[in-house]
């Protein structure tokens, strides 16, 4: 008989009554379920309590990632699974996760699990939204989140201890991101307004944001996979970079020039280590494009 590995589930919630039941329904097998609630004003806590979860309370924060680390210590089992309240797992996930730990747990401390993202009722096939690996299953004490929104967590024992699952036929996280484009835009604005910005004026260049906007559009625009929705998403995310540039500019006292808005300061052939395809030179840029552009541009200047 195979040994069952106990898994602690941690979910952060905020007014999650619409999505939490599905997540909890699909994770009854977890040895322990911890719901960290940020002052929900709906029935989130009631739902979590009724499902037998251990409910903890925290203050409302703009970004959940920085406080994740604090609650990882609450897990009492060796393996931790972290899900967001608008995510859920498939009906065969328990068996798949057990198999993963059984077969690879000796050589891996963390697993990057592919994620299906759904926008406006459509499961995104490309546009940078798939496979969208997420480090969410890991051994206690081996993973830490970084400050800011949607930063990839760090595997403290080294990248060689991270195992990335290759889709399609493997366990996935299912993410009901946004019911429509309007909510997608609203969320991006909120993230942009609440994110951290470098306080060093020397590090600001509106041109970098502009370059990132172009790169983001190129990376996300994949109509062969997602049709017009791809164009919509790419436009929103490109515009997100511009908005962030303006927010950053204002926070620094509006002392820098925005003249870069009139021109694209650099052109990018392809990201390092990525082969460019004719006609779509930016298609293969990695998700870390922002950091890469920043490094390239600031590096040239210095």
């Amino acid at each position, binding site marked *: 008989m195979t040994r069952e590995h106990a898994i602690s589930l941690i979910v952060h919630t905020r007014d999650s009554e619409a999505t939490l039941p599905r997540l909890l329904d699909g994770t009854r097998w977890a040895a322990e379920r911890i719901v960290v609630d940020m002052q929900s004003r709906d029935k989130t806590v009631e739902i979590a309590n009724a499902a037998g979860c251990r409910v903890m309370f925290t203050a409302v924060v703009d970004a959940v990632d920085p406080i994740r680390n604090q609650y990882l210590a609450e897990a009492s089992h060796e393996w931790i699974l972290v899900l967001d309240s608008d995510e859920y797992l498939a009906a065969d*996930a328990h068996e798949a996760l057990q198999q993963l730990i059984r077969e690879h747990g000796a050589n891996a401390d963390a697993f990057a699990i592919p994620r299906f993202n759904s926008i406006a009722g459509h499961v995104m096939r490309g546009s940078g939204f798939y496979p969208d690996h997420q480090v969410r299953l890991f051994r206690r004490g081996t993973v830490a989140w970084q400050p800011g929104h949607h930063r990839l967590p760090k595997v403290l024992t080294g990248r060689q201890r991270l195992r990335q699952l290759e889709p399609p036929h493997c*366990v996935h996280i299912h993410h009901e991101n946004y019911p429509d484009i309007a909510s997608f835009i609203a969320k991006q604005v909120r993230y942009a307004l609440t994110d951290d910005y470098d306080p060093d004026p020397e590090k600001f260049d509106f041109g970098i944001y502009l370059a990132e906007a172009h790169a983001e559009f190129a990376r996300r625009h994949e109509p062969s996979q997602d049709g017009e929705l791809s164009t919509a998403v790419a436009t929103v995310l490109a515009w997100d970079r511009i908005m962030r540039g303006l927010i950053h500019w204002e926070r620094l006292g509006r002392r820098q020039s925005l003249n870069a808005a009139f021109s694209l300061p650099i052109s990018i052939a392809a990201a390092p280590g990525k082969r460019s395809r004719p006609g779509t030179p930016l298609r293969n840029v990695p998700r870390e494009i922002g950091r890469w552009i920043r490094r390239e541009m600031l590096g040239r200047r210095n």
Partner: protein
Amino acid sequence: MELTAVISSYGQPALLRTCLIMLERALARAELRSTAIVVMDNGTLIPYRPAELGVADARIVRFDNRHPFSVACNRGAREIPAARYLFLNNDVFLHPEALLEMLDVMRDHEAGIVGARLVLPDDTIQHCGVRFDGGERGPYHQDHGKPSAIVTRVTSFPQAVTGAAMVIDHAVFTALGGFDEVFPFGYEDADLCLRARQLGVRIACAQGWDSLHLESFSDRRPDRHQASRRLFLERWRGRYAIDGDENG
């Protein structure tokens, strides 16, 4: 719940959508008080979305990996327990009258399992009951390939019916522990029926209406049944009644 329809499906969303449209018509014609539809998304590359299926109240249960038909059907039945289950392949388009007839047969003949008469697109028989041969052939579809027009429409009582379109009583299904999940692909339905017969359950096949079966549309691997067939014959050879030569 009076009846839960369980459809295990992999890919082919347009096929599934058409299957569901026909199922809804058949459910409406059957005039049951409460019915439910469970779609088992059996590892489809891009998960099914409710909107693309065109059936607002179908419940989709997602598997990320592909599982045997038996596993998917058993999971689907557990999802919404009901007095009866209809197991249906995504490549079966039920005739609007077919389900009503199956339920009538179940009631009138006190059958615990009822199959449907299925035809191929050229209007030849795909399934109207399973017969068992004593030789290497084992179980096979009766009158397969014969024009439907020349095959009797009298309700039959074979030893087994296909799981491609099968109604089964909840108590029978529960007593049997559902489909045996040891079968990787195929023969789990014949196994279920033979086990049911050992419990004294009557098996029938409704013959009044032809439903279309685009047989093996989703999976055309020539050897897809081999492992299950071996298992089935190891378990049942010599233990089922020989139906003899249907042409004899």
